[in-house]
């Protein structure tokens, strides 16, 4: 188990390293240099050279990369944007929690709901709840979250006044309103994942229930609830894997949802940066997203290693 954990962590770090390198290369290789963006088209060559020298942009790319990496790893410092001069740490620190809250709530709610639905669906095959679960699965997978958002806004916020059509009231000011304004975004964000996970739980549990060791469990006379627990212990492994992957993906799709609901999260930071051609900010934000993604995958792998010791042994 420990060796598995170490290996996975090492691989995740390797992953982040490769990705950050690729990202860095990409942002540094675009034709529009930060100097030109900041100083404008009228800038003289003299001014550009000076700018580059001031910001360390005249050094070889690999040297710049190592410097950037060192700042990031040892100082947890993303530095200041070349284009806007603002401190990127603070910008991200302001927006990251907002996105994180939406994703976390959507993720937890979807996970609980889908595991419950999937389990019931597998236990009571061909019952009404099974059909409901399968319907949700098909719809959730096919109706894109952002369209669902538009439809729900039309339905709930325009025709009825149940949920606000956008924005999030701060929690400290008005908790109830804050929670209400989270309902639609989280619902739209989690719908795809809910569908995928319900289906996965169902098929995984069905498969496990037919296996030999479940027969042994029943032959031992174990209480039906414990039999279910025995089954879930095994059936949840693929579910955890998908959970990890999906958390990262949801973090990405939150971008679109935030745009629709006018929420001031990471998406705003990214899109504003793109608009302002602030490529160092783009790089920083994408790095954050990737970090979350890799981190979620890592946690899922570790949880799986704990759940299923055979995986840990084989790794």
């Amino acid at each position, binding site marked *: 188990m420990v060796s598995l954990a170490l290996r996975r962590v090492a691989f995740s770090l390797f992953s982040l390293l490769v990705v950050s390198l690729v990202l860095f290369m990409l942002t540094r290789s675009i034709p529009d240099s930060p100097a030109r963006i900041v100083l404008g088209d009228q800038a003289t060559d003299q001014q550009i050279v000076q700018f580059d020298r001031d910001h360390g942009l005249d050094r070889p790319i690999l040297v710049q990369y190592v410097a950037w990496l060192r700042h990031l790893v040892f100082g947890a410092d993303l530095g200041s944007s070349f284009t806007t001069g603002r401190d990127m740490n603070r910008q991200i620190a302001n927006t990251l929690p907002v996105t994180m809250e939406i994703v976390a709530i959507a993720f937890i709610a979807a996970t609980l709901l889908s595991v419950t639905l999937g389990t019931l669906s597998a236990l009571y095959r061909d019952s009404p709840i099974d059909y409901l679960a399968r319907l949700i699965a098909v719809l959730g997978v096919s109706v894109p979250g952002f369209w669902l958002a538009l439809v729900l806004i039309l339905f709930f916020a325009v025709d009825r006044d149940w949920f606000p059509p956008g924005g999030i009231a701060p929690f400290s000011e008005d908790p109830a309103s804050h929670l209400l304004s989270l309902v639609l975004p989280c619902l739209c964000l989690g719908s795809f994942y809910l569908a995928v996970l319900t289906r996965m739980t169902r098929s995984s549990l069905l498969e496990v229930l*037919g*296996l*030999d*060791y479940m*027969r*042994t*469990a*029943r*032959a*031992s*006379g*174990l*209480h*039906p609830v*414990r039999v279910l627990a*025995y089954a879930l*212990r*095994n059936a949840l492994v693929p579910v955890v894997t998908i959970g990890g992957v999906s958390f990262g993906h949801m973090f990405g799709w939150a971008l679109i949802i935030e745009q629709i609901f006018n929420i001031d999260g990471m998406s705003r930071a990214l899109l504003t940066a793109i608009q302002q051609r602030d490529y160092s900010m783009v790089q920083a934000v994408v790095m954050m997203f990737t970090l979350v993604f890799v981190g979620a995958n890592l946690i899922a792998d570790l949880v799986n290693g704990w*759940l*299923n*010791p*055979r995986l840990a*042994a084989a790794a």
Partner: protein
Amino acid sequence: MTGPLLQVDGLSVAAGSGANRRGVVQNVDLRIERGEVVSLVGESGSGKSLTALAIMQLLPSGVRASSGRIVFDGVDLLELPRRAMNERRGRDIAMIFQDPLTALNPTIPIGRQIYDCIRTHADLGHRGTLTRVEELLALVGIAHPHERSRAYAHELSGGMRQRVMTALAIACGPKLLIADEPTTALDVTVQAQIMTMLDRIRYELGLAVLFISHNLDLVAEICDRTFVMYAGSVVESGPVETLFAAPRHPYTRQLLRCIPRLDWATGPMPTIPGLPPRFGDLPAGCAFAPRCDAADARCSSEKPPVWREPGRMAACWRAA
């Protein structure tokens, strides 16, 4: 308590539904006395495993007992509600299966699996149950039971897994142990060890055992009585020595002839020609007739009567 421990009367099991319905076990009678070791022998597909699963009420979905009675300790199991049957499983009747690797939960330590089984049927307290788990592991011949109880199934050898399964089965002191081909998946040397262990357990705990196998030779060692199954029915039964010495059914006779002996001269080994019939595809008349070396026209057209003597039976025209 008087009367046999297990009495199966006219058990029939069918699979599928509607147009696909086929009988896989027909009209089986079995009797096991307390403390007796009985074997159920037959080829693959003879219905022996399904008979055992029917007794445990663990038939797979789509397969159902269609008629008959299974009277265990005075109670007809087929009439019991689900919860009552669940209470008896593990506590009064237990079963060990053929492939111990797939039969043990891979994500739960083996000690925990035994612990849970004991806790379900008895209240020995936490420490008491843990002690009992280690006692059981030692009883089935596992060294270092304390360390081993934390192991997972895939960390153990085949023979050890089978011992663990046995420990799991006898954990609550059942009266009847059903062993479904427990040694088939094991190496020959390990087979012998497991058989010895089972015999010892049986003796020490006073268990009755229903031993299922396709290997006549193997069961002769530890069994008192044998039931021979072919194509879903019992074709012969009786005390093991008499069956071996003077079989009354051609199937039993031909089976015995196939067992290799060291004093044979060289030459082709005897076999039973042909294949057993598929489920639901039984010929008219005796099911074994197409492969029987003593069959005649009557055998192929009319079902044979059951010849009986006290303690023996054979379903053959020529039994007498």
